[in-house]
């Protein structure tokens, strides 16, 4: 079987499984679901802070002059790093709020949450990442997953 392996790309299943293992380990270490949520958010924040520089370097992005440009850049970033194409919708009338709709979340493939963890925000790392990234470019955001 000949498969050319690109050293920079990782199998998406490996990525999903790694993330799952990480969440399970956090649950075992911290025990409280709220703590895990907070931890994931903080981890996401740290990742976002670094990831944004990589994104700017790769896409030679300039400063965004309004939120719509920011939304486009976020979309491009999701496509670049997670391979998904979220769509942008639900613009608030004031133009200061919007929703990113993700169809298939690569982080949650194969995952089923038991009832004991119904409060857990499994993808909490994503809002953290977006918040970290935006803060580095001087944009304060609040991002939540529904």
């Amino acid at each position, binding site marked *: 079987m000949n498969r050319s392996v690109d050293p920079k790309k990782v199998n998406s299943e490996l990525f999903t499984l790694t993330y799952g293992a990480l969440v399970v380990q956090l649950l075992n270490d911290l025990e409280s679901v709220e703590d895990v949520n907070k931890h994931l958010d903080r981890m996401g924040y740290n990742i976002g802070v*670094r990831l944004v*520089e*990589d994104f*700017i*370097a*790769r896409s030679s992005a300039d400063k965004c002059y309004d939120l719509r440009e920011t939304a486009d850049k976020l979309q491009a970033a999701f496509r670049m790093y997670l391979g998904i194409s979220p769509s942008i919708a639900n613009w608030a009338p004031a133009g200061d709020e919007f929703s990113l709709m993700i169809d298939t979340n690569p982080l949650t493939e194969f995952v089923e949450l038991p009832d004991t963890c119904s409060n857990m925000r499994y993808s909490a790392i994503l809002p953290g990442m977006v918040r970290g990234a935006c803060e*580095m*470019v*001087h944009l304060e955001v609040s991002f939540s997953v529904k």
Partner: protein
Amino acid sequence: MTVYNLYIYNRAGTLIYYQEWSRKKPMTMSLEEESRLLYGMLFSLKSFSNRISPLDVQEGVQCYTTNKYKMTLFETPTSLKFVCNTDVNAPGVNEMLQKLYTQVYVEYVIRNPECKPAEPITSELFKAKLDETVRMSPAFSSKAA
């Protein structure tokens, strides 16, 4: 045609990296004082040029030239500043700084979990790569101007 020195500032205005390749005149003040002086000047210059600009949207200050040297500033959207002094005729300094950012800083600082983004850079690998990139750029040649 040569590069004299390079400063890198983080978003708080602290100098996180400095390197010089040739400096004929000795430093008149300590590195810390000099870096703060430089940062203050750049900040004021940027703010002044933005306010006095007759046009709307703009990139901001990119460089200034004296009869002896040229100082080029490259700023990323994350407020990271690369400042470089070269001789007056050096070509492509802006491209060199951009290349330094994408190929050296992002690779060796951002991707290094030991290097915290806002703190002074101590990675030897970064120093080596930075040196290599600067030496290979068209702005640098072994004949000092």
